[in-house]
């Protein structure tokens, strides 16, 4: 990370996870992906949002895993869920049904309007790097009441033009999304290892709205492939508290232990 001060005693992932967790509220219905979003949502649940409702696209509704899943469909998610439904139902009745407050998305690339690429680097037919693809993202991006994007900032990931639009943010900005018929309000935050970007009113272009204590706005601008606007009233994000870090590290440790437990198949 291009931090301009001494690196703090927590990792960029930890800072991002804590920042994302703080954005979730008690009772919030959250459509969670694997990795950092899952860690953030569960951290929120363990701290200030015990009534948060976690939905994974594998079909688990209201799940309360003790350890983080490695995959979107680990057994832990089903065993601790309030309901386990078929996957087509998740997408039709729960996501498209407009019942999701917050959808979390990652990507390989984001542009200034919060559009995301998780499909391909290079031309689609002649890929330089073929990525896993869109998965649930296009419809999470369309239907969740708001979307939080989590992505480390660099000129390679924060690009002027996506190689491929896997899921729509504000499209070309300036109200284009609303005209497209997408029901949700779109991406409302991009959480990076420098801080948080928010869409500006009117243009809907993302600007740096908050930075971590140990980074500068100038460094964030440098790590962005487009001329990043910095908000006049740039907020500073409080560092992780001891409580937050402890809870997160305990969760990660439990997860680590669970995932390295050997599996015994039936004879």
């Amino acid at each position, binding site marked *: 990370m291009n931090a301009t001060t001494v690196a703090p005693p927590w990792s960029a992932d930890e800072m991002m996870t804590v920042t994302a967790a703080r954005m979730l509220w008690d009772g919030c219905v959250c459509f969670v992906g694997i990795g950092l979003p899952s860690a953030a949502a569960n951290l929120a649940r363990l701290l200030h949002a015990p009534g948060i409702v976690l939905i994974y696209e*594998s079909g688990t509704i209201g799940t309360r895993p003790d350890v983080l899943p490695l995959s979107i469909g680990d057994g832990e998610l089903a065993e601790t869920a309030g309901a386990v439904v078929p996957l087509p139902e998740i997408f039709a009745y729960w996501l498209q049904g407009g019942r999701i407050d917050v959808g979390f998305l990652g990507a390989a690339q984001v542009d200034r309007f919060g559009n995301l690429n998780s499909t391909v680097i290079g031309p689609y037919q002649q890929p330089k790097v073929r990525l896993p693809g869109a998965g649930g993202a296009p419809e999470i991006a*369309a239907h969740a009441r708001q979307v939080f994007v989590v992505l480390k900032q660099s000129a390679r990931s924060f690009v002027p033009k996506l190689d491929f639009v896997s899921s729509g943010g504000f499209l070309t900005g300036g109200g284009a999304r609303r005209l497209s018929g997408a029901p949700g309000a779109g991406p409302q935050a991009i959480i990076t290892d420098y801080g948080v970007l928010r869409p500006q009113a009117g243009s809907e272009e993302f600007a740096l709205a908050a930075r971590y204590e140990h980074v500068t706005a100038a460094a964030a601008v440098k790590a962005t492939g487009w001329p990043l606007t910095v908000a006049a009233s740039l907020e500073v994000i409080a560092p992780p508290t001891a409580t937050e870090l402890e809870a997160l590290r305990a969760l990660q440790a439990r997860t680590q232990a669970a995932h390295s437990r050997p599996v015994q198949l039936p004879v």
Partner: protein
Amino acid sequence: MPIVTLTAAIADHVRDGDSVALEGFTHLIPFAAGQEIIRQRRRGLHLIRMTPDLVYDQMIGAGCARRLTFSWGGNPGVGSAHRIREAIEAGWPQPLEICEHSHAGMAAAYVAGAARLPFGMLRGYLGTDLPAVNPAIRSVECPYTGERLATVPALNPDVTILHAQRADRAGNVLISGILGAQKEAGLAARKLLVTVEEVVDDLGAPMNGVVLPHWVVTAIACVPGGAWPSYARGHYPRDNAFYIAWDEIARDRGRFTAWIERYVLGTQDFAGFRARLRADGVAA
């Protein structure tokens, strides 16, 4: 609905060139069946699966497929599906046509297939480039509101293969836990093969449990452990360590090919596969 060996089920029901869906969303992935297809050297398959992960990494890397319909292809929680990537990026071991959807689109296509509708409909693909690269994604106009909605053609695989916890001797199948689009993929298919952890006298299905009745199932094979390294709720957990280990195996053509030779092509059947894994100290 006969209960047969996995060898016979694949030999009798999967043909070169067939469209084949092995479903199971992280849970109950029919790995043993996929490996048996490799072992029997099927070629030119149109593979269909929402999440082509390790099972299709193996089948595509082993040269079984000419086409892939999917919505997310990777090693869940780990990274790339290296064999699928190399097939798409470099045409190795052979070129792979792709038909790419979102999860919601694939789910709607299976639902349409199960309901024998010609297409599924969703408010989807909004603002994405997917319709530009997949001409199968089209739209209809709502006859009430005038709104345009995305459509996907129904998926009706020649063969769907599922893994489930249990069948009774009549061939009724019980699935429990994370369901994915298994039931829809099963009912959408012309033939449905199921591998199960156990065959029992009494299915013991709970009220409103997910049951595939014997008369929609073409053949059943009893293959305990057949979902490894994925999992079967109530039988064994997901072998996350193997998913992580696969990253190294699949990253390299040579190492991958040696793995397939040693464990799949070089063994007689799934029992042989497991015996060799055990002999090599892999928990299976």
